[in-house]
């Protein structure tokens, strides 16, 4: 039943409880390898781990004849949480030694935090003012979740029905499973209350940025980068509720922060965070696999010996195993978005012209819509000192370059595909980019080690 005239409050509260319990389970699971991180970072890692735990519990329950509900999901999460607590026994939370902020710094932090909070509030209200209505939500992310919720299974027709040719059968399923799990917890499909997932993911993203930079750079840098990310209206807007981009931005921020820590020397905790970030990113969007592979290249270039091997494996293996699991679930799927025959030798000559056309469109968008912000970024990079995250800077243009290649082999008119999707997918990179920018003003002066206890 769709909610068109139901009072929002009770359903919203129940979804909030579902997100809180999954985050609690995630906190227990991630406790061992988030010691020494700031509280805000621990919240973000717990949120991501919790969403994975919740989806795993859902799949487990769906494998049994009993229909998932709030009690069964809670019991499943409690079992996982208990296991996590037992496995992470011993040791307390690592204490962060923090240089006290000056009065001027405190004022700046308060101002920037208030700005980020205001921007987040605007997004929160906007996302929940209406039922989710994004095209991508209706056509696949929400559609698949609703089918799972209403049928109580993951029906094979989602992957085999020719009539669902538009529903991107090859896409990862974490967003759909999360929406379904929240609906099972809620007891009905209220696509307005379920939209709480998006402000929740946005909050976790902002906390991850500010917490990471507060630990590794300075509290002002953390507050500034979080405020900057929160103002990214092209990403944090109501029309993106229901799509994968907002949770995906969280995945990219977590993967980037773990990779930056890994650059300073891997520990078991950092490796575990790379594993989680890889799995989380790959489960949200196909581009997540690309991003973690690019991070693996960066780590391969900057690390040596065992640290290089372990860190790269921690990024590459989970994303690859996720792809294999998805393959087993849905079988081989054609990618209707892409015409891979363009990679065959007989069509190679077509590629340069298509690529030039796509890059031309990118440049046109950059010149007409983003010239000022791009210039601002260039100036900022020129006048600031090298930062702890600079090694990650090439990842962002590389990701966009791969988008250009992907658009070049589009099955449809590449211009149509670019105009429909490029801005949205490019802007999902922005919070992670803000993290890298925020790491630039100062060199690491903190005592807290990246591996953290």
């Amino acid at each position: 039943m769709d909610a068109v005239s139901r009072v929002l409050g009770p359903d919203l509260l129940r979804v909030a409880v579902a997100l809180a319990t999954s985050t609690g389970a995630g906190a227990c699971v991630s406790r061992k390898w988030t010691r020494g991180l700031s509280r805000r970072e621990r919240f973000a890692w717990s949120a991501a781990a919790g969403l994975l735990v919740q989806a795993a519990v859902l799949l487990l329950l769906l494998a049994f004849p009993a229909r998932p509900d709030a009690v069964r999901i809670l019991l499943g999460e409690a079992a996982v949480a208990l296991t996590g607590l037992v496995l992470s026994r011993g040791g307390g939370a690592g204490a962060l030694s923090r240089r006290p902020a000056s009065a001027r710094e405190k004022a700046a932090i308060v101002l920037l935090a208030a700005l980020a909070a205001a921007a987040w509030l605007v997004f929160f209200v906007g996302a929940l003012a209406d039922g989710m209505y994004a095209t991508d939500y209706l056509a696949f992310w929400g559609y698949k979740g609703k089918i799972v919720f209403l049928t109580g299974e993951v029906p094979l027709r989602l992957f085999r029905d020719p009539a669902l040719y538009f529903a991107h059968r090859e896409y990862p399923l974490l967003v759909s499973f999360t929406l379904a799990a929240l609906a099972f917890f809620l007891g009905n499909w209220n696509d307005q209350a379920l939209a709480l997932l998006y402000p929740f993911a946005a909050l976790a993203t902002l906390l991850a940025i500010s917490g990471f930079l507060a630990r590794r750079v300075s509290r002002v840098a953390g507050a500034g980068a979080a405020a900057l990310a929160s103002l990214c209206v092209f990403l944090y807007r109501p029309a993106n509720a229901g799509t994968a981009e907002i949770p995906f931005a969280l995945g990219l921020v977590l993967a980037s922060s773990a990779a930056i820590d890994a650059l300073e020397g891997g520990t078991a905790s950092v490796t575990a965070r790379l594993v989680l970030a890889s799995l989380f990113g790959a489960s949200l969007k196909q581009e997540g696999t690309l991003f973690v592979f690019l991070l693996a290249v960066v780590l391969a270039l900057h690390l040596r010996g065992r640290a290089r091997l372990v860190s790269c494996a921690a990024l590459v293996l989970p994303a690859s195993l996720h792809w294999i699991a998805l393959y087993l679930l849905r079988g081989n799927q054609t990618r209707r978005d892409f015409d891979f025959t363009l990679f065959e030798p007989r069509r190679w000559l077509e590629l340069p012209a298509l690529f030039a056309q796509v890059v031309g469109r990118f440049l046109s968008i950059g010149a007409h819509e983003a010239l000022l912000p791009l210039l601002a970024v260039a100036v900022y990079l020129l006048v600031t000192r090298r930062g702890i995250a600079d090694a990650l800077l090439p990842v962002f243009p590389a990701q966009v370059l791969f988008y250009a290649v992907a658009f070049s082999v589009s099955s449809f008119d590449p211009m149509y595909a670019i105009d429909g999707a490029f801005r949205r997918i490019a802007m999902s990179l922005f919070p992670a980019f803000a993290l890298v920018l925020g790491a630039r003003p100062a060199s690491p002066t903190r005592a807290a080690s990246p591996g953290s206890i």
Partner: protein
Amino acid sequence: MERAKRALAGLSLVVLAVSLVSPLDRDGTAARFRRFAAAVSGDPAYRSDRMSFWFDPDYAAFLDDVRRRTPESATVAVLVPRRPDLYKYQAYYRLAPRRVVEERWIGEADVVATYHTETGRGPGGIEIIGGRLWTR
């Protein structure tokens, strides 16, 4: 020099922030705050699917009627306008878990529902809100 660099860095971040926030639609945001308040307070005039059917507000009632009249196990062919493609996606989404198909798979359908299309002007069927319905 150091102070000038800091000032330039700060200025570039302000420019970046202003550019990022510039697409914000103030009137639209104010309207969303009002709709959110209406949703939370249980205002009877509020409908959460209003934005979903911006392209055709009457289409929601048609899909609701098709849903009421068809079993969940049915395969429903929906013959709806081709543009915008939201007609199709809304039908798939709103009629779930029914299997919804387009005209080219009409032979597999237990029920055919038409809305504002030429095909819907054929004989037979029953009149429903905004269209016609044929049951096989």
